[in-house]
């Protein structure tokens, strides 16, 4: 049974962002593991702490993306409006198998953009990058104005263009592919031009006309 994240933090659904932060900070102080060292209650506190963190993340995520503002907790989907919130939570907590099962249970004609986005997230968590990029693409196509789907899709597109994080600092590794698309002849020309520039700087000249 899923709990309402607002109830966990002890605030109303209309609470402002500041109020949420305040409530969250107080609860964190209350359940902080430092206070429960060598205490038999430490496990309970840890559980509570995880619950509070998750609730806070969820509320903030929802407010940021502006997706779900009304919660249907305890509502067991009767086919329509499947419980994507709990799927999101399963993915966040690393429960990928269950999340995938819940998604697969949704009938094919009821799969909306969010379904494809979540399916993409499941694939991504598994490391199935090709499938993930396919599903994110479908989600972004179905709802082009959704920033969450667009961000996921853009990231995949960016990565699939050959970008590698950190390659900029590597000796001998031009950004992207190590070989530019130019042919060998083009590279030779570039090299000659460079050599010419160097020579000119040193007072000589390799290519007399420039």
């Amino acid at each position, binding site marked *: 049974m899923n709990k309402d994240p607002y109830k966990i933090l002890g605030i109303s659904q209309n609470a402002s962002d500041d109020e949420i932060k305040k409530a969250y900070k107080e609860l964190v102080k209350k359940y902080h593991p430092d206070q429960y060292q060598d205490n038999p209650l430490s496990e309970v506190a840890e559980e509570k702490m995880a619950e509070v963190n998750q609730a806070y993340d969820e509320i903030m995520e929802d407010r940021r993306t502006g997706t779900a503002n009304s919660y249907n907790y305890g509502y067991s989907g009767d086919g329509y409006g499947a419980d994507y919130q709990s799927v999101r939570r399963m993915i966040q907590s690393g429960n990928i198998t269950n999340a995938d099962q819940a998604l697969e249970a949704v009938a094919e004609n009821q799969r909306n953009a969010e379904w494809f986005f979540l399916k993409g997230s499941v694939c991504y968590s598994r490391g199935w990058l*090709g499938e993930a990029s396919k599903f994110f693409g479908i989600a972004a196509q179905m709802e082009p104005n959704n920033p969450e789907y667009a961000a996921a899709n853009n990231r995949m597109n960016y*990565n*699939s263009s050959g970008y590698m994080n950190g390659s900029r*600092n590597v*000796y001998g590794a031009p950004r992207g592919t190590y070989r530019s698309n130019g042919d060998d002849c083009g590279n030779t020309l570039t090299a000659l031009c460079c050599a010419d520039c160097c020579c000119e700087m040193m007072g000589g000249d390799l290519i007399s006309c420039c």
Partner: protein
Amino acid sequence: MFGYVRAFKPYLRVCEYETYQAIYCGLCKEMARLTGQASRFALSYDVTFLAVMNMSVNDIPVTARRMRCPVHPINKRLCVYDNKGLMYPAFVSALLAHYKLSDDISDGKNYQKLLAMGANAGIDNGYRRAALKYPELDKRISELMKLQAEHENKREPVLDIACDPTAQMMREVFGGLTKDVQKRVKLEKFGYSLGRFVYITDALDDLRSDIKKKCYNPLALTDGVKIADGRISDDDYKRIVEITDLSINLSLAEIADSFVDLDLKMYRATLDNIIYVGLRNVYELVREGRFNKRMRSKGDKI
């Protein structure tokens, strides 16, 4: 493992090259010592990469000396010697070689089968020592090999699912480099993506011969690809390459992300070379049909 994870030598500095070569040679000697003479034939650039990673993750410096080697009889070679960084990769290599050969025995035809059986008998002792040393890894690899065989038997067409067992195997292997929980998570992610890279590159490399021999290859099962006379058309090959390009680039991006995350210090330049230049170089050679598994230096020509 297949030798796809290697440095791009023209871009290695001389000191880096010498270290890389000393680890390669040292590993060969260590394999002979730990898992028997026959296991030396399983030496590959992939295991060498695992050794460099191991020495980097665990901050193990190079300890080397010049030693004789039957393959290079004239001059003594610099070999990493008496170094605890080589034990894990040597044992892992024996485990992987054993399962690779067992796989060949069940798949291969006549003479291949005999050859694999002979080789497997040769490294059997080494495998048993490795399995004794790392029983959990051995168990996981054996499970994943079974999963791999299942995918092959039902001719799994989805590339991501087909490469999952290999990728998971690499996840276990790289995860085993450390006991630190946080580092382990990053290394596992790194290993998984690297496993994907290796599998997909291998699938593309073997595509034409697999189609000819009617062997399973997930890329040959791509939608709309037609096989006539044991061949595919150039257009179909191009479409397959588009798919592998996408998956390879996505995997490389993940590899780079987790590598940056790991923030390794030792042997950084060599690792950078392998990850940012070597991997892509190998993939591009494979794509152009110029990669040769057995030729070690020819593949380095730009």
